[in-house]
């Protein structure tokens, strides 16, 4: 009679990452966060856990003394010109169109050449 293999005991409850991912994919973010907390205590070296912990963490925030320029005139321009620039990226400033293009890359290239440093507002119409 052959010798039986000895199989190391496994405990599926110590494998967290697949369950965290499944919770995220079903929209149960709060439960996913709770499971991350449990996993960090129980099995902190599980591969992939640190990244899940990072992306499920609250955002880090810090107030900074920096303000945007007034945009009321720019918003009025956007509200009035959507039909004329469908599927276009636009750059506006002080209520006027500065440039437009079909891609963000093209728009930024135009701005770099013609309006470098101008505090434009970028928007894409849909």
């Amino acid at each position, binding site marked *: 009679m052959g010798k039986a293999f000895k199989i190391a005991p496994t405990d599926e409850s110590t494998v967290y990452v697949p369950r965290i991912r499944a919770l995220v994919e079903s929209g149960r973010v709060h439960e996913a966060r709770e499971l991350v907390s449990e996993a960090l205590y129980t099995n902190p070296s599980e591969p992939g856990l640190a990244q899940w912990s990072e992306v499920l*963490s*609250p955002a*880090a*925030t810090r107030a900074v003394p920096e303000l*945007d320029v007034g945009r009321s005139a720019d*918003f009025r321009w956007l*509200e009035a010109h959507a039909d004329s620039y469908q599927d276009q990226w636009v750059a506006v400033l002080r209520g006027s169109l500065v440039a437009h293009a079909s891609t963000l890359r093209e728009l*930024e290239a135009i701005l770099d050449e013609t309006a470098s440093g101008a505090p434009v*507002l970028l928007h894409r119409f*849909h």
Partner: protein
Amino acid sequence: MLKLDGRLFTRSRSKYTDHVPQRLEPTAKIYVRLLFGGMDRVVTAQLDTGAAWSILGSEVSERLGLFGEPGKATRIRTSFGIKDGVLVRVPLKIMADEGESLDMTGTFFVSPDWPEGLTFLGYSGLLDSIRFALDPQVNDFYFGPC
């Protein structure tokens, strides 16, 4: 700036627009202003408390070099169907007209299948980490750290 029961609630305010027509979805949408780390121009983004995650428009993702970045691969259900992508941390500022802008690093879903230009600020990992309030009569967005 904005007080609740006599105590400071938020200290920043910015104007938003909710009248920009959209062909894809014509109902009113709230657009606020962001400055992403790695970009030097302010862009609009849609505030969407009903979205589980913030999502970057595909061109912005490409511009920020986020395709191919390490993140957590996942699949989420969106208004454009089920999308495969990654969750990544992205630095940005929510720009203020008064008070202080809010520098933050939040979680965004990035997918090459996501439509161009549609950038959302969603709930998890971003809006759930700040205080905010709207005054829709005058289109004021109040915000600040928790």
